[in-house]
């Protein structure tokens, strides 16, 4: 404890809640022998050709700073890659290489948010948006999505959340934790509202390659949207490169240059080794990436059918690598379910509420896990549910 710092800390950071995931993490770490479905990253190591390319770059002595915006070769490769989503960005000034999508979100918020601005954030969704909006001085307004709509963002809910203070909307589909996606016709309805209210969209498309039944559509490719969208994407999920910390932000030069202004002072540039590995990934990584997606697809089917078999209602997630089963039938809250399951059966899942209020009644389970772990955890969860039933019968018999 330092009372000096206690006094010195700024209000914004004191008002930022710690990540709920963190608390749960500590609990899991202190329980030995856990099978964890609580991870948020691929279970593959980065494909060898990418690792090998980075050894080569080190051997050749590529160990310097790069341009603030990132290596032009990487920006060109990103620009070329994005044409597959009907997107055109000039690699010179419309692409910025960031330290993962995480930094991209922070830059976008800091470049856009004025004290009191409202930013709409789908609920549930990835944990970093709301705190970063708060740190930038804005107000995160949850946009409810619910199980009955397969956690899709509906035009009605969007329209209802917009006020005169609304500046931007964060779109994050395929979604972590729900696995929901938005199809082109669904995005068109969202785009119409966004344009009518003259809003900005920050679209986190980090799971764009991880869809199973439909191909991904980027909202930036719809008419009238390019000029009002910041597209965020990165290498973490598709290429199993979470530890390399490489992502990118694309958009009109007006916004990208300002995001770069923050980035040049706080980050300088993304690590060069990661950038060179990213070039190898984006240029030659398609085949191995698809193999990983196919493998996730198998495990998705397996996990989802397992949940439904043991009485946890679970829709087939369309993207990312998370199943989001409902645990409402047990009568427990998400937090209770996750904690009791951990204690009783040593299976770690993330309570849906870690991702927003609308996650209540659900748990997030990552199927980028070994098949044997998936099967074993479903067995344990089945036993857990049966014991719950017995307990409630005992209680009602008393």
């Amino acid at each position, binding site marked *: 404890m330092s009372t000096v710092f206690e006094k010195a800390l700024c209000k914004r950071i004191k008002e930022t809640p710690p*990540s709920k*995931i963190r608390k*749960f*993490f500590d609990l*899991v*770490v202190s329980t030995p022998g*856990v099978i*964890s479905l*609580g*991870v*948020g*990253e691929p*279970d593959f*190591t980065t494909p060898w050709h990418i690792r090998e390319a980075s050894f080569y770059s080190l051997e050749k002595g590529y160990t310097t700073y790069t341009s603030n915006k990132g290596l032009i070769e990487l920006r060109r490769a990103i620009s070329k890659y994005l044409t597959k989503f009907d997107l055109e960005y000039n690699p010179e000034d419309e692409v910025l290489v960031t330290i993962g999508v995480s930094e991209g979100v922070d830059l976008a918020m800091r470049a856009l948010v004025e004290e009191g601005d409202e930013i709409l954030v789908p609920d549930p969704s*990835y*944990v*970093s948006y709301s705190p970063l909006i708060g740190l930038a001085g804005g107000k995160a307004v949850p946009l409810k999505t619910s199980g009955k709509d397969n956690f899709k963002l509906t035009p009605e809910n969007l329209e209802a959340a917009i006020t005169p203070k609304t500046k931007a909307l964060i779109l994050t589909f395929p979604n*972590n934790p729900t696995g929901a996606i938005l199809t082109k016709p669904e995005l068109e309805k969202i785009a119409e509202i966004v344009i009518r209210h003259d809003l900005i969209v920050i679209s986190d498309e980090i799971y764009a390659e991880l869809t*199973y039944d439909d191909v991904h559509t980027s909202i930036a490719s719809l008419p009238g949207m390019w000029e009002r969208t910041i597209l965020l994407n990165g290498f973490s999920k598709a290429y199993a490169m979470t530890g390399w910390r490489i992502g990118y932000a694309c958009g009109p030069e007006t916004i990208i240059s300002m995001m770069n202004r923050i980035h040049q002072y706080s980050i300088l540039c993304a690590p060069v080794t990661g950038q060179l590995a990213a070039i190898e990934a984006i240029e030659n990584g398609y085949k191995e990436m698809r193999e990983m997606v*196919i493998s996730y*697809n*198998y*495990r998705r*089917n*397996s996990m989802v*059918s*397992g949940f439904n078999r043991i009485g946890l209602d679970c829709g087939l997630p369309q993207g990312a690598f998370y199943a989001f089963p409902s645990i409402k039938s047990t009568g427990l809250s998400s937090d209770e379910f996750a904690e009791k399951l951990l204690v009783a059966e040593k299976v*770690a899942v*993330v309570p849906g509420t*870690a991702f927003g209020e609308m996650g209540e009644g659900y748990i997030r389970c990552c199927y980028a896990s070994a*098949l044997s772990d998936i*099967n074993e955890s479903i067995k344990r969860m089945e036993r857990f549910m049966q014991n719950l039933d017995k307990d409630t019968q005992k209680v009602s018999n008393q």
Partner: protein
Amino acid sequence: MKDLKSCVLELLEQNSRLPIEEMACLLNASMEDVAAIIDELENSRTILKYATIIDWEKTATEKTNALIELTVAPEREFGFDKIAERIYGFSEVKSLYLMSGSYDLAVFVEAENFKDISLFVAEKLAPLNAVKGTKTHFIMRKYKEQGVPYKSEDTVKRLVVTP
């Protein structure tokens, strides 16, 4: 995605002991459909055999392997097929491929020891009329077999809970 047949083959190539029930689950297909596909693949000899990859070094069994490069004179009408059949008939021959380049047939042989392989080459392969020359390379160490490294990869632990 891919058709069911290719998916079944890929899964079996990875693990030929995968139960049909589990395979049906992974593929979101019925057990009947998967079983029918496997039957068809076996009957058409698309699936030749279900084998196991073994690290014999970890056992008491002695095994020596060699690659023998053969140059052969092809036969009129039959090309290389007749001589290939003569060669792959020997139980010592584990694999046999027709190659482009400086020799014709690559013969992978396995026997208990060095001497048995030498004898096999000297007494069975070299005397064949069509065989013009042999070059025997003993395999000193195996690193990877049918896509599987002998050494297990160190597994890097992911954090147990991440956002």
